């Protein structure tokens, strides 16, 4: 029998420290749904998603009950729609978005990802149509998430698509202005996007994937924070060890749930994403882990070093606990979804510039940051270009999910509700980047892409 202390530790993690499985995400390939006729394509997509994911929510709830582990989200990711609806016009693309939304409602899931385009090197007319339809698609649906990959280490940075995305984000903010520009919370711009990420809003089912897969994202900032609290005088090597051991336990739970979900749904197990995903709940914050390590406030000097240690230790602990690791795998730092980040941003200790530095050592990027509604599109594009460059040069995934909250200015607050939380509007630099962004073209792939 397992030691009584271990049993009580697990129960305390779940009851008091917010340990949960953040998401069980079913990836579904839509390649076999392709049709020249929009109506037929939509029917095929709806039928396939509801057929495969019809039992996803119930299965998740059954596992959750039997093992006593909360599974917060059950979600679906699909093949990037730009690849399925290659030549369709923007109106047809929106119809597909509405079909995804309807399928999500039928399955009882809260988000479906894959309204996406991969334009890191160039852009087909279909991909352009999809990107141009994003604001309307996000404004007219509830559950659909969208992502656009604008760069890879292998191919360089597509500045044309970054320039376009600045405008798309602004337009999305405007069309969803009644709800705090929430559409932008469902739109991510990526570099080196992974094909098996279970986390929204950036999840899609990649082209190298099979017909269907189960990917699981774990969580547990509260558990790590609690473990560190018990060792107030530990040196930094001991801190790294504590985090590794904790991450191992968290990930083993994720692996168990992934294996169970895969078996019960008769769908291959894809990956476990070794993540520390915060929620706005008190005690479930990545920022508080960093503060537990000895920082007065997240964002002050030393933050990047603490985050680097945290991110690395999470991976080291988690890697041994799962048979397949993938997705984004690392500590997330979404400002609006993390009580400690919100506090630090409100008192200006945490700035966008510091967040950018932090993203060089963690997963994933400038995430859920509200900026003034009147920020020029070219400034948004330049912020994206900076962040994406970090990913390209360092061979890692980076992403940008900014919310230029319509009508809001620095010091205001935007509330999205639920796990998306609320964000203080943070200042950006006022000096223009217009000329740089308007140059267009591609930033060549870096030297470190030439590895063959």
């Amino acid at each position, binding site marked *: 029998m397992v030691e009584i202390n271990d049993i009580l530790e697990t129960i305390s993690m779940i009851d008091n420290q917010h340990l949960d499985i953040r998401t069980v995400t079913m990836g579904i390939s839509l390649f076999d749904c392709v049709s020249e006729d929009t109506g037929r394509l939509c029917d095929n997509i709806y039928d396939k998603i509801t057929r495969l994911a019809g039992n996803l929510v119930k299965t998740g709830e059954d596992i959750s009950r039997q093992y006593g582990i909360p599974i917060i989200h059950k979600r679906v990711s699909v093949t990037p729609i730009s690849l399925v609806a290659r030549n369709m016009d923007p109106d047809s693309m929106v119809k597909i978005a509405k079909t995804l939304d309807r399928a999500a409602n039928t399955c009882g899931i809260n988000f479906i990802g894959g309204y996406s385009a991969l334009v890191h090197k160039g852009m087909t007319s279909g991909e352009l149509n999809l990107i141009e339809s994003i604001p309307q698609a996000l404004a007219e649906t509830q559950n659909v998430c969208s992502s656009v990959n604008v760069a890879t280490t292998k191919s360089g940075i597509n500045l044309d698509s970054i320039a376009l995305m600045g405008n798309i984000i602004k337009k999305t903010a405007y069309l969803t202005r009644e709800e705090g520009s929430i559409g932008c919370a469902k739109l991510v711009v990526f570099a080196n996007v992974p094909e098996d990420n279970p986390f929204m809003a950036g999840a899609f089912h990649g082209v190298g994937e099979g017909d269907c897969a189960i990917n699981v994202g774990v969580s547990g900032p509260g558990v790590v924070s609690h473990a560190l609290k018990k060792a107030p005088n530990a040196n930094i090597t001991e801190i790294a060890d504590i985090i590794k051991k904790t991450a191992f336990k968290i990930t*083993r739970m994720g692996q168990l749930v992934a294996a169970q979900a895969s078996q019960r749904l008769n769908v291959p197990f894809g990956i476990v994403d070794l993540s520390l995903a915060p929620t706005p709940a008190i005690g479930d914050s990545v920022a508080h882990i960093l503060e537990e390590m000895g920082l007065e406030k997240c964002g002050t000097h030393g933050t990047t070093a603490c985050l680097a240690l945290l991110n690395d230790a999470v991976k080291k602990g988690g890697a041994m606990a799962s048979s397949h690791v993938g997705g984004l795998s690392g500590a997330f730092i979404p400002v609006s979804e993390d009580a400690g980040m919100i506090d630090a941003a409100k008192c200006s200790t945490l700035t966008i510039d510091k967040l950018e530095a932090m993203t060089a050592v963690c997963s994933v990027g400038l995430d859920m940051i509200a900026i003034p509604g009147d920020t020029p599109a070219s400034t948004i594009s330049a912020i994206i270009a900076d962040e994406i460059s970090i990913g390209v040069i360092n061979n890692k995934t980076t992403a940008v999910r900014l919310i230029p909250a319509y009508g809001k200015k620095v010091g205001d607050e935007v509330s999205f509700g639920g796990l998306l939380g609320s964000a203080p509007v943070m200042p950006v630099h006022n000096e223009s980047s217009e000329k740089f962004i308007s140059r267009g073209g591609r930033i060549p792939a870096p030297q470190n892409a030439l590895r063959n």
Partner: protein
Amino acid sequence: MRLVITVVGKDRIGIVSDIASICKDLNVNIMDITQKVFDDMFAMVMLAQMTDTSAPFEEIEDKLDKCGQKAGLKIHTMHEDIFNSMHKI
């Protein structure tokens, strides 16, 4: 399948008996019990085996949960594998 039933709450006469009789009524075999009383706090971990004739898991969990709510005890009923996977390599 094997269940781990944990019970925590204020000590009183008959806690073990209450849980044991629910297990008996639902045809669940008790395999091991570890319990302690700290001051007046009672903590027990019970390992139980479900068989073909046992009631469904949902019913077992439900009955134990209701018993806990009625008696002011915190009762968790969980598949043993969650602990094995987290604490054993």
